[in-house]
């Protein structure tokens, strides 16, 4: 035997050092403004219980072939596309195809509107026919959606200028969508030729969060419900694989997720960057602030919030024209994405930025330089900024 004498005290000191080296004895919670998840304030006890149930369904429930996954699918859970309620990773990017002109509602190819690029064992996934136009959608962050859902159509239409009457080069067009059978208009929805304004999705193709949620279960995970009863693999009805209650709990969860909280809003560079953002006219589309009207969820009533979007479609130029579309949007039109939470994107995208609708931009600056069409002037103004001013603008955007 090798006899090594080790004193007790040094060993205990070593153990203590190990514990001490673990940053802290108990890991502290990240700052509230560093996280996207969490409920909006002032929820009642019963609302907190509904929020919790929706949280579990959204983030913890992973579908299996036994519980309804597929047989063709894109993702196995809501949370795998929206980790921590943030933006998704190219791993779960959606491929949309089928509609190639505005308003086209028939003659979609088989499998449209979403490619099912994965399949459970024993099944084959879909493949796009060569030459089929398609769009790729990186999953968006889902925070603050309830505030956007609570806005009135009238508020959204106030910023619309389809014919650019004011001559500022910015149009802003609502995407009018045929509602699904289960859509129930609220007092603030306005029908135009039996269509309603879409607010959610890269092309604003979903009118409300119920439609967004039910179609996501169906088209992203291959999970049927009474709302979307057709199996995406066969286009035939099958027994519901997720309950109405679960879907409504998830809708409530999405409705009551807090809005992202800006970090360091009082610092000099952030204030200066915000001014530059206004000066180069980014705010014409990325409208900073909105105020909700009365809502059936009290916590959402009369709240001023800062999403940096107008929820309208804009011509983004030929370089962002994928040749496919949804609803009444042209193939080159995209809904102004909210910028809130932008700086936290790497925390849900694996430490990197994957921006624009398909994640093609690897930095905020790259994303700005990809803006075309109606954003040409703003992009040009950005390019002419000094390096210092560019950094101030980027610092502001990262603070969101």
């Amino acid at each position, binding site marked *: *035997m*090798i*006899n*090594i004498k*080790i004193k*007790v005290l040094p*060993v*205990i000191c070593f*153990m203590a050092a*190990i*514990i001490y080296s*673990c*940053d*802290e*004895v*108990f*890991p*502290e*919670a*990240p700052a509230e403004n560093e996280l996207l998840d969490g409920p909006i304030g002032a929820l009642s006890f019963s609302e907190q219980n509904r929020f919790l149930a929706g949280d579990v369904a959204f983030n913890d*429930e*992973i*579908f*299996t*072939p*036994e*519980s309804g996954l597929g047989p063709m*699918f894109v*993702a*196995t*859970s809501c949370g*795998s596309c929206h*980790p*921590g309620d943030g933006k998704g*990773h*190219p*791993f779960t*990017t959606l491929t949309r195809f089928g509609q190639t002109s505005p308003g086209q509602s028939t003659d979609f190819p088989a499998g449209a509107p979403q490619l099912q*690029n*994965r*399949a*459970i*064992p*024993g099944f*084959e*996934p879909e493949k796009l026919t060569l030459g089929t136009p398609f769009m790729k959608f990186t999953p968006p962050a889902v925070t603050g959606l309830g505030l956007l859902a609570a806005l009135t159509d009238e508020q959204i239409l106030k910023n619309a200028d389809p014919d650019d009457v004011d001559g500022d080069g910015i149009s802003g067009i609502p995407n009018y969508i045929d509602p699904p059978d289960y859509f129930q208009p609220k007092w603030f929805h306005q029908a135009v030729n039996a269509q309603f304004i879409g607010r959610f999705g890269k092309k604003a193709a979903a009118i409300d969060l119920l439609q967004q949620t039910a179609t996501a279960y169906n088209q992203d995970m291959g999970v049927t419900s009474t709302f979307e009863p057709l199996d995406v693999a066969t286009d035939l009805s099958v027994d519901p694989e997720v309950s109405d209650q679960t879907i409504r709990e998830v809708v409530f969860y999405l409705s009551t997720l807090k809005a992202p909280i800006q970090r360091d809003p009082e610092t000099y560079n952030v204030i200066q960057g915000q001014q530059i953002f206004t000066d180069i006219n980014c705010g014409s589309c990325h409208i900073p602030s909105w105020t909700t009207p009365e809502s059936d969820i009290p916590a959402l009533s009369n709240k001023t919030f800062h999403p940096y979007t107008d929820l309208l479609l804009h011509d983004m130029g030929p370089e962002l024209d994928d040749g496919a579309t949804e609803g009444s949007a042209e193939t080159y039109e995209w809904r102004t994405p909210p910028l809130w939470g932008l700086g936290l994107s790497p*925390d*849900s*995208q*694996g*430490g*990197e930025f994957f921006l624009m609708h398909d994640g093609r931009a690897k930095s905020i600056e790259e994303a700005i330089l990809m803006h075309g069409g109606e954003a040409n002037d703003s992009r040009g103004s950005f390019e002419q900024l000094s390096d210092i001013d560019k950094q101030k603008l980027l610092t502001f955007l990262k603070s969101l």
Partner: protein
Amino acid sequence: MKTSSSIYKIGGYLLVLICLNHVAFAQKSDSSQLLLNMDAVYNRPFLQAGSFPVAIGGYIEAQGEYFVSDGITEGVSFKIPRMTLFVSSTITERIKFLSEIEFEEGTKEINIEFAALDFEFHPLLNFRGGIIMNPIGAFNQNHDGPRWEFVDRPISATTIIPATFSNVGFGLHGKTYQKQWVWAYEAYVTNGFNDQIVANSEGRTWLPAAKENVDRFEENFNAVPLITLKTAIRHRKIGEIGLSWMGDVYNKYEEDGLLLDQKRRLDVVAIDFNTSAIKNLDITGEWVWAFVDVPATYSQQFGSQQQGGFIDFVYTVLKREMFGWENARINLALRLEHVDYNVGSFEETGGNIHDDLQAIVPAISFRSSSQTVIRVNYRYIWETDLLGNPTAKTAGFQIGISSYF
């Protein structure tokens, strides 16, 4: 298996226990330097009444813990992770029976972990049949709570190797001695895995999901048996090293003559070692690799390769009579763990798929005898999700007791 018949069987075992009023404590010596991990199943303290051919024993574990995950705690919690009963019998001189029945977390799960007959034809040729603990790694066979200074079982040994993993089957084992050396082998064919290992609600390749198939003690999931091979060698003064492999087709590729899928293989390789070559210091470790044929068109979150392991350092700082217990010991211990549930990179970006964790567990334990331990652990775990987003940190204290009885 939560069936009433199982409970009746357990009742029968308890009846035997009650009948044994006057018992002698026939503990086998654990001081031998030539016992291997494969001997752990018989190297346990048993109670035997005179010449009565049946001996019984068991162990219990109880623990309390307080953990905080990124600032959020669920408070103090207590549990009995397991209570296990052993029954053994020497039927004739070279035919032995042993069973191990485990109650996990109260009666949440009742499992027969081992129930096998051993026929010794020659020390190098023993035939074993019944419910067998597959000899993959060391921990799966040598997992009794009182043997360890740590409250929780090693993560890799319970989530890559799904310890305790046992199946119905048959096989051979044997060993031979040469001066300071002992060499042993084991080879079994048993029922095996099923497709839940890649179709589960854990959202990752998860070998423990195979244990959820309640029919696995009744029939094989597919027509292909799980083969498990292990060889180990020990030097009296140096220590033991083992190398093991198990391989299987895990999916249901055919039923009623219909081809449902191609055959998909699972292979697990493990290396384990332990040494007491340094005075007062025991070092134990195990590393495992799992290779799973996951369909390329299935989700990348189900990894086709996993790896992980642990290494334990246990240093005896005090060994003398304490509080009236002879040969009582105080140990300081440290466990380091790493598990990567998905070795690979994303097709879309080429970036590393994470889904991994690291843990460090300093511990202090008091042993009134080698069969009983009181242990206090501090545990810190860093977990990274599939995408490599900011690490989730969990830390806490655990206190546990464990003893053979």
